């Protein structure tokens, strides 16, 4: 009977009314991401020696389909090396407006230095502020440029608006995200 179908539909909507909404109220509640979500890059360090993994080889820049990466290498000081190899990245910049977050840099990297992290809250006001340098991406830097600016202004710690389902990827050595 056609009317019964209508009645069943009405019952369904009435039942759903008493169910908890599925919406995540994003800025207040944390959005849940999967570990392999590709967000802002992280430049990792060797555990123990604390030297930077990046050896300034520019393979990431060559692999980048969007030409978003700029690397300028320099010789290591043998007495006080920055990285374990001969050279290190004096300048390492990624333009986050050009980046398409494809992860090819991560695939190209021979030392596993550049890894896609999970952070994605990078909205900002000026083009120039989207060019992230080493200091913005090295392990230990929590939050994006605007988030850190906001935190410095308000005096509160950076608050990431997401949590990672199942914890951080193994490649992201030393990075912690809220679970």
């Amino acid at each position: 009977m056609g009317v019964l179908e209508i009645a069943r539909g009405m019952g369904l909507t009435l039942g759903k009314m008493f169910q908890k909404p599925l919406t995540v109220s994003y800025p207040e509640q944390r959005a849940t991401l999967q570990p392999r979500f590709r967000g802002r890059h992280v430049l990792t360090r060797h555990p123990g020696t604390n030297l930077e993994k990046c050896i300034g080889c520019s393979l990431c820049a060559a692999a980048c389909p969007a030409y978003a990466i700029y690397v300028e290498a320099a010789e290591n000081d043998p007495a006080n090396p920055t990285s374990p190899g001969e050279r290190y990245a004096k300048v390492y910049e990624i333009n986050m407006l050009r980046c398409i977050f494809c992860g090819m840099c991560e695939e190209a990297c021979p030392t596993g230095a550049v890894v896609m992290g999970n952070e994605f809250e990078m909205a900002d006001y000026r083009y120039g502020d989207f060019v992230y340098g080493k200091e913005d991406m090295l392990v230990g830097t929590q939050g994006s440029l605007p988030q850190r600016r906001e935190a410095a202004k308000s005096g509160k710690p950076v608050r990431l608006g997401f949590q990672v389902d199942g914890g951080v990827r193994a490649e992201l050595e030393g990075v912690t995200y809220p679970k």
Partner: protein
Amino acid sequence: MPDWLAALLITLLKAVLVTLALLTTFAYMTLVERRLLARMQLRPGPNRVGPMGLLQPAADAIKSIFKEDVTVTLADKLVYTLAPIIAIGMALSAFGGLPAGPAKSLFGEDPWVYNLNTGVLALLALTSMGVYGIFLGGWASGSKYPILGGLRSSAQMISYELGMGLSLLGLLMLVGTTSFQGIVAWQATNGWMLIFQSLGFALFLISSFAEVNRTPFDLPEAEQEIVAGYLTEYSAIKWALFQMAEYVNMITASAVMSTLFFGGWKGPQFLNGLIPGISDWPIIWLVVKIAFFLFTFIWVRATLPRLRYDQLMRFGWKLVLPLALGNTMITAAFLAYRGSGGLWFLAILSFAGLAALLIMSDRVRPLWNQPTIRREDDAVRPALPARPARPAGGD
């Protein structure tokens, strides 16, 4: 102060109060509707303005008033401005005749704005006038989609008005008066009209949905086909006035259904045993019943998809209208030949009619679901092999 002046002032005061109450209800209905729809779709709904989103209507009102009021170049300025005023004016004035309690119960005054002997007829006439607002609005916009929307809505409202009026005829014959007070009094002695006119109520409910342009009959504003119908060229407060008219019509339809079929302002009699006189309290019972029907309007909107336009017209002319006529005939025959028979027989008759309609619901579907227009090439085209039967319930 002379008596007539005092009476006039009190009536004016009551009219202002009813208007304010209706407009406040409209404002909060928009919020309640959005919240309820959202909850039925597993969303939280608007919850940003004020605690739990309670100030959202205020924000909407401020926005509508201060938005730029665009008048399109091709519009007929006078009619374009008058149309929303007609719509809201008719919607508001229709509500005034509905009694919210017994005479002299509201601080010694009557809880209605005007009381006509022709209550039901006057109300039907006033609500029908609202279609002028919609139609003229569509016409005066001087553009294509609005006039299509206006035409659609006038055709729809005229079609369903017949069903609406006819479905009430049985009720009026039973009661023998068209005044709302008389109908409420009749129900107080004989029981709710819903029992004796269940078929009539079903038809009236369907026609009401069509009359107030709500889903599944909201064809005049079918976004996918004609943008926003007659509302397309309207903005700011004029647009808000049309919205207001729609919601006020909804409230009026709910009040009419409560008054005609659900005992009106009188509460259930058995509660008098618990608290003496509770069923005679003014306003509260009517508000409760209106709230129930308003919830039904929202609930249906959350559930049912919109009808196609030809389905809508056929549904009105081929199902609602003949059935309403049939209901009238049944009631008339009962009244003519009842002898000393009780009203319960009419209740059974009416309920049997409703049950038969529900059971036959799949059989009567071709009435409105199959196009009657045949294409010319059907005659010369070779007959296709018979298609397998459609699964039940699927259109």
